[in-house]
């Protein structure tokens, strides 16, 4: 039962100094904080389970199920091919227009879906955020990764189309994984900013659809970046998705001129955006549970 020693603080102070494990200290954090990526590594299993959950429930209670992953880019490709390819006669760097646009739609949809999902991820997981501790970064990262499944499925369709058009990828295809990683990094970079902002300002929720729509037009999905005057190419690269989409085409179809400069600028832009997003996210993280 109860023991008077509970209040003998002198005793316990000694114990603290003798303690072998350093304690976890909870205190108010001030100013900018470290990224604590090690903490994130410790919660990698949780990340795995959250990705797994999102994949599992994604097409629950739908009739078409995983077919949606193919239908969306495919139907968009058909519409674009008819209106931009056939009627507007948009050039396509000598590649058949359908595969030209489908090849761009894949990384684009990966990006757009990941952006939407991660932007809303903290708010839709507020039940977790207010009830249990884990590095909050796990949430936007997990929804971005979950989007890879759809991407993988629609990639199979692309391979089928390449076979149909008789396009054989060059050795450039080896760069593809890096381009995909780059697309994810881009989505995450923007998603981190939006998700953290969304916790406080729900305006973000309404901004996202508009943002993705607007972004689609400034990205060379329906048209090649070669339409953009040479002098503006570097500025154009500041839109990282320009680099992603052109890089993706180059890696798979092998025929896009002058991607190098565009890519370099895009990689730089994403690096800055991602790092800033991480810092901003970590700084805002401490108040998520209070204001979400």
């Amino acid at each position: 039962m109860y023991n008077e020693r509970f209040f003998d603080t002198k005793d316990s102070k000694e114990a603290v100094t003798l303690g072998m494990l350093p304690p976890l200290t909870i205190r108010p954090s001030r100013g900018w904080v470290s990224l604590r990526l090690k903490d994130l590594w410790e919660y990698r299993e949780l990340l795995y389970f959250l990705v797994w959950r999102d994949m599992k429930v994604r097409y629950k209670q739908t009739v078409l199920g995983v077919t949606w992953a193919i239908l969306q880019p495919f139907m968009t490709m058909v519409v674009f091919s008819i209106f931009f390819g056939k009627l507007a006669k948009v050039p396509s760097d000598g590649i058949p227009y359908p595969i030209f646009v489908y090849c761009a739609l894949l990384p684009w949809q990966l990006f757009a879906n990941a952006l939407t999902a991660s932007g809303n991820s903290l708010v839709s997981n507020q039940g977790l955020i207010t009830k249990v501790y884990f590095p909050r970064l796990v949430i936007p990262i997990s929804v971005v990764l979950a989007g890879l499944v759809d991407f993988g499925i629609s990639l199979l369709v692309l391979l089928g189309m390449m076979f149909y058009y008789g396009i054989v990828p060059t050795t450039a295809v080896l760069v593809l994984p890096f381009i995909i990683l780059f697309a994810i990094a881009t989505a995450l970079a923007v998603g981190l900013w939006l998700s953290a902002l969304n916790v406080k300002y729900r305006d973000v929720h309404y901004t996202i659809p508009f943002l993705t729509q607007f972004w689609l037009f400034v990205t060379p999905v329906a048209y090649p970046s070669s339409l953009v005057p040479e002098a503006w190419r570097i500025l154009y690269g500041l839109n990282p998705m320009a680099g992603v989409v052109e890089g993706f085409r180059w890696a798979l179809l092998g025929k896009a001129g002058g991607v190098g400069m565009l890519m370099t600028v895009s990689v730089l832009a994403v690096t800055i955006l991602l790092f800033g997003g991480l810092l901003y996210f970590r700084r805002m993280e401490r108040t998520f549970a209070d204001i979400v």
Partner: protein
Amino acid sequence: MGDVAICVENLGKQYRIGQRKRYNALRDALSEAVYTPFRWLSQFVNGQSAISNEQSNGIIWALKDVSFEVKRGEVVGIIGPNGAGKSTLLKILARITEPTEGYADIYGKVGSLLEVGIGFHSELTGKENIYLSGAILGMKKAEIDRRFDEIVAFSEVERFLDTPVKHYSSGMYVRLAFAVAAHLEPEILIVDEVLAVGDAAFQKKCLGKMGDVAREGRTVLFVSHSMAAITRLCERAILIKEGRILEDGPSHRVVSLYLSSGIGTTAERIWPDRNKSPQGEIVRLYAVRVRSEEGHIIDAVDIRQPLRVEMEYEVLKAGYALMPHFAFYNEEGVLAFVSHDLDPAWRRRPRPKGLYVSTVWIPGNLLSEGMFFVHAGLDTIDPVIPQFDECDAVAFQVIDNFDGDSARADYAGDMGGIVRPMLKWTTQSRLNEFKVGDL
């Protein structure tokens, strides 16, 4: 390893009332940014301090100057009225939210259990949810694999493991959720009012599990409104009110202080909201009251005086014979006795719809001194269908003064015991020339 598990120093948490608004619009932030310089200017001109500005902005301290220490293996209950800051304290220790000032040192792995069913997804099956929820609560996959069978056995939902939990009854859902949580194995466990769910039998099982955890020598911080649970599980309790520690000591002492100060459980509980009252399909509980012999609502009674406890309930569906009952627990959580209604007026008779009041009369000189917690329950008979079983519905205190005419007689010390009846004593005497055995 040292013997301290948690050391909290001057912990404080400040909320701006505005922060608790559902959401801010960007527009507000923009207008704020525009107006702030002007406000500073006007303050400067008027000579106002920044502090008064803070106050007008509605800053509240949910927690202030909280310091305490918990030893390894100690089970500490945290009690206090709603809004006292108990949950805020737990959230800080569980690292969900940051303190505004002060610090807490934590020695060991912390597991927190602030809600039952965290991370459950209604579309996933029971089995999938065990893994998901386990991972969210901080268990490794290997750990879940190892304890999977145990978790399933505890939850009693074996047959529905491959059914999405959206098809579960609420009871099954809660049992599964608690089963996962109960098999967490942190060195320090932080638990918020999670036992207030499920049916009575399952609550008992959960309490038993909590007791096991405590006996295994793990450190537990436990918030509850059930004083019986606190006294049963915790050797020490901390009373918090308005963000500050009011009392810290042996749980039975802190609990009775809390109850006698009138900030805790009361002698009368009413559930005016139809949807929130304890109920079954046939009967819903409306109120439980403790009354003196004369009918006044009282929260303390002289040990020599009789008292009565009543439950008021509404029969929603006619045609069932009912059996109301009360269970009386003392402040250590020991069951003193259970009493069933045996008034012939309605006994074994199907009842029409309507309001009823069933009262039990407790004679004077029966219960021992101290706090008693009354559980109010009601079943139908034939067939037996439990309707409600409300733990700690009301509480009252029995006071034994030193007037010399109770079972205490002239003894002034702590007597203990659950009951303190006045029994007949005789003392015979033979003062001259006696032998042992003569009497």
